[in-house]
């Protein structure tokens, strides 16, 4: 269990994490790496307190500040940080200097086997990318840390490396009872691995909870934007009818019928949010917009791996299946339908 409170260097947050993977999600500069570095002891904090399993690593008030080597935190750097002048085996031996020789080699041998590193005599630059990844985790774990800090590389993740990344982190999650703090800019990683995610922005935690909850119910438009949610429109609630489970919303140029929004009042100004994949789009062909349909001009169509993204005037983004779009690709005038069940509202603007 790690408990963290930091209030310095423009960062102001508090959280705790138990066994399992906790993702620190945020854009560059949100403070993810700074949090990892503070816990590892690489930066000197001002106000704050960090407690790992009842041991105080840092306390600004009482002046406790353990050096990194006494914090028992495994650290996997974003470029893996393997010492380039040592073989993979020597990299794994490095944290074990204090153990007797035989024990040291026994542990390294065991770790090499567990991670399937076949040629430990190679230097990091001679090893394959996936082997480097495994060696980096092996080195961080071999000294039996009480916490694992992982900084996910922002670039250079091809499909093979990504698969290995998931596999190794799952293995850590299942075979150890370590709390893992994972700094990432990658929502896929949060969903794939994390039990809890913290959404960070400018040194603050905007949201926390299971990734599904955070992404489905962001509490503010700021959080929604950081999560890459498209189709955010300012709206006003005109009517609310719990009996018929319906509501009426006024957007900038049009009105929509939606479901009843519990906890909202008539006249509330909110942000309306719709997943691009849930919008339906069809060519207008001179037809009048029906209920919940809006006439919109297609500005751009871009290919996605499995669908087509249509960007309309007014900031509406829809994703449709390619076979539906292909015959209509020269059409500019479209009708976009907002299915009532797909509408969600977020806090006040």
């Amino acid at each position: 269990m790690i408990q963290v409170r930091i209030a310095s260097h423009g960062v102001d947050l508090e959280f705790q994490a138990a066994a399992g993977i906790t993702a620190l999600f945020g854009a560059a500069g949100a403070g993810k790496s700074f949090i990892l570095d503070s816990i590892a002891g690489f930066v000197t904090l001002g106000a704050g307190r960090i407690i790992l399993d009842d041991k105080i690593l840092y306390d600004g008030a009482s002046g406790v500040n353990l050096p990194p080597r006494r914090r028992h935190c495994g650290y996997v750097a974003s470029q893996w940080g393997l010492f380039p002048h040592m073989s993979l085996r020597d990299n794994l031996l490095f944290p074990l200097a204090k153990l007797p020789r035989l024990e040291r080699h026994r542990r390294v041998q065991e770790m090499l086997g567990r991670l399937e590193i076949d040629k430990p005599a190679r230097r990091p630059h001679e090893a394959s990318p996936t082997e480097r990844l495994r060696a980096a985790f092996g080195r961080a774990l071999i000294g039996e840390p009480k916490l694992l800090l992982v900084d996910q590389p922002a670039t250079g993740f091809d499909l093979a490396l990504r698969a290995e990344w998931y596999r190794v982190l799952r293995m850590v999650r299942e075979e150890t009872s370590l709390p893992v703090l994972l700094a990432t800019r990658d929502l896929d990683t949060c969903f794939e691995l994390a039990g809890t995610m913290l959404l960070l922005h400018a040194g603050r935690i905007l949201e926390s909870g299971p990734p599904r909850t955070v992404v489905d119910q962001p509490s503010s438009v700021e959080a929604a934007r950081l999560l890459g949610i498209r189709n955010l429109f300012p709206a006003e609630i005109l009517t609310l009818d719990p009996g018929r489970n319906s509501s009426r919303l006024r957007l900038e140029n049009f009105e929509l019928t939606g479901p009843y929004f519990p906890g909202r009042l008539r006249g509330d100004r909110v942000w309306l949010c719709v997943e691009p994949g849930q919008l339906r789009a069809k060519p207008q062909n001179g037809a009048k917009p029906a209920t919940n349909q809006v006439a919109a001009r297609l500005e751009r169509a871009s290919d996605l791996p499995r669908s087509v993204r249509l960007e309309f005037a007014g900031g509406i983004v829809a994703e449709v299946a390619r076979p539906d779009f292909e015959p209509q690709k020269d059409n500019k005038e479209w009708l976009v339908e907002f299915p009532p069940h797909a509408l969600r509202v977020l806090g006040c603007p």
Partner: protein
Amino acid sequence: MPSDWSSLWLSLRYAGLASGLSLLVALPLAWLLAHRRFRGAAIVEAAAGLPLVLPPAVLVYYLLAQLGRWPLRFSWRAAVGVSAVYTVPLLLRLFRSAFAAVDRSFEKIASSLGAGEWRIFWRVTVPLAWRAFIGAILIAFVRALVDFGVTALVAGGGRQVGT
């Protein structure tokens, strides 16, 4: 052709000792300046750089003024000491940049893997900065070898030149 190699031998020995001595002074100092923040670090650095920017004649004058109180004979000890005044600042500069070129993240990771400063220095920093270190020592050696003028004037007590 009979030749006297003794003066070459003397020069090499003297330059080797001079660069060795400056290494002992410059290396810890460079490490301190690169890794520790302390009051007066900037002053130490500026002061250490001073001999580099002074013209040799001025330096000789200062050294003579300071050392002239003692009856200095031209001895290899004096020659090595005087030469170090010139090579220490040079080495300090070069070592500083060699340290700066080492990616600090390796040193950080080493510390989180349980290594103390001493171990980090010998197992991580030095091996990573190896080439730059060797280059720096070579330059210092050559400098000590070539800079005979100042050394001869000072170590010779300003009177005799040569051996």
